[in-house]
């Protein structure tokens, strides 16, 4: 449930569901997100669900904080909603061409390359949210012994398709962008496709993702 609602500036509501990061709190956030999205309240522009917060921004020409707050407080998000979650397998190639930070991870985690891949691959990760850049999924949770901080100095360009780790999360860079996460491999899949306007994201909040390793040859032939 929402613990507190405050204003984020004059054109957004900040709905706080708590400070912990776990599936149960995140599922609450997603439930509110989907309920409000379905109802299409006049004036609400955008909904941004994250681990444990939901930001609701609105058009100040059409509504205001008081109206949106009272609307959200009176929503019955207990209604059973079909969250329509999928389970997806994502091919990832961890060849040295792609795993730019494997040496760094070996040092920080004090694990061998083999052990790191064994810990990472073939496990179910939950998609908490998408964003930062279009379609980027924030997946968790990594095993306790797999958690590394982000790079001290972020890269100016992280290649498209990079699969990367930070703290208890994994993500996928949906297009080339700056970024500071530890890069472990690369997927040949298009995780974000702006030509599919109704469903540009392959992975959505609530989905489950499993990374399956592919060889460099399989990677090269993947889109042929």
């Amino acid at each position, binding site marked *: 449930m929402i613990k507190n609602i*405050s*204003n*984020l*500036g*004059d*054109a*957004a509501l*900040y709905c706080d569901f708590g*400070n912990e*990061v776990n599936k149960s709190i995140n599922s609450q956030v997603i439930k509110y*997100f989907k309920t409000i*999205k379905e109802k299409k309240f006049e004036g609400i*522009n*955008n*909904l*941004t*669900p*994250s*681990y*444990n*917060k*939901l*930001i609701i*921004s609105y058009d*100040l*020409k059409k509504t*205001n*904080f008081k109206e949106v707050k009272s609307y959200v407080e009176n929503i019955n998000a207990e209604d059973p909603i079909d969250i329509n979650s999928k389970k997806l397998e994502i091919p990832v190639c961890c060849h040295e061409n792609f795993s730019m930070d494997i040496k760094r991870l070996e040092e920080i985690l004090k694990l061998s390359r083999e052990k790191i891949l064994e810990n990472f691959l073939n496990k179910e990760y939950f998609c908490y*949210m*998408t*964003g*930062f*850049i*279009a*379609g*980027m999924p*924030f997946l968790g949770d990594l095993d306790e012994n797999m958690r590394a901080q982000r790079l001290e100095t972020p890269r100016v360009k992280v290649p498209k398709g990079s699969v990367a780790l930070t703290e208890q999360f994994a993500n996928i860079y*949906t*297009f080339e*962008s700056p970024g500071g996460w530890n890069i472990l491999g690369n997927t040949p899949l298009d995780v*974000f496709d*702006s030509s599919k*306007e109704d469903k*540009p*994201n392959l992975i*959505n*909040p609530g989905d489950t993702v499993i990374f399956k390793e592919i060889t460099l040859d399989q990677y090269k032939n993947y889109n042929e």
Partner: protein
Amino acid sequence: MSSNYLDIIRPGINTTFQDKGRDHLYHIGIPFSGAMDNRNYLIANKLVNNNLDSAVIEFAYQGPHIKYSGEKINCAITGDVIFSIKKKDNEIEGNCYQSYQIENGDEINIISTNKSVYGYLALGGELDLKFQWNSCSINTKANIGSNDGKKLDVGQRINLKKINSNKDIKKINYNNTKIENIRVMRGTNFDYFSEQGKQIFYEKEFIVSKLSDRMGMRLEGPKIENIVNTNIKSEGLIKGVIQVPADGNPIIMLSDHGTVGGYPKIGVVASVDYDRLVQMVPGSKIKFKEINLSDAETLFKLYEMETQNLLSQI
């Protein structure tokens, strides 16, 4: 083949097509985009008898040099902009906030914005542009929108789908007012900062850094000390949010901002000051002034009434 078109002789530094922007997409990571200075965008369209949500050409600092071919059409430039219009036998210095009729072979040369960042060129008609999610706004970081999501390039041709039949010449007296005090509300992590940090935020001057673009405005100045945590769990952002990363220098989120972020939020710029904020050039001084939510709402209402009033005079 369209018979009315523009050829880009010089694209300018950061020239894009923009309109009202796109919404209902933050949850998949796509920001609002749209014209940075909304008031000047609306006025530009009104001056050439367009629908107010039509696409315009937005430029920053140096603008484009364009050659027009086709039937007579109106054009107008808004902002604080130095430009000229070259006709067959003469070249005139252009004035912002009035429309001009141009004809086959005429050139518009937008030399630069003056002590401001963004300017707008509207043409009386409809540009032939691709729409993505009901908007042609270009987001160059994600390559979304018209022109394959890329800024305009030299040698490009832009077709017009149609030309407005209403070719009345319009004019309005308007001056872009500049501000030094940006009004803000407390951010959701205001208490992450030391007493001294909070004081610095409201009392000291900050300078707009060169590392500012449509995504964000970086500020330099006295460091704002964080006493809780320099990272938060990533959460949603909106335009105007002021984040303070570990280095203590504030960053203000602008129209193409990343949809989530993990730095503490010290404040949020009041909507009333957004159009003027984005026009502040690198090197400008900024001072933040705290206001409460209800004042921010009232001030925005007044600002919006003023905008509507300006539009109704055109």
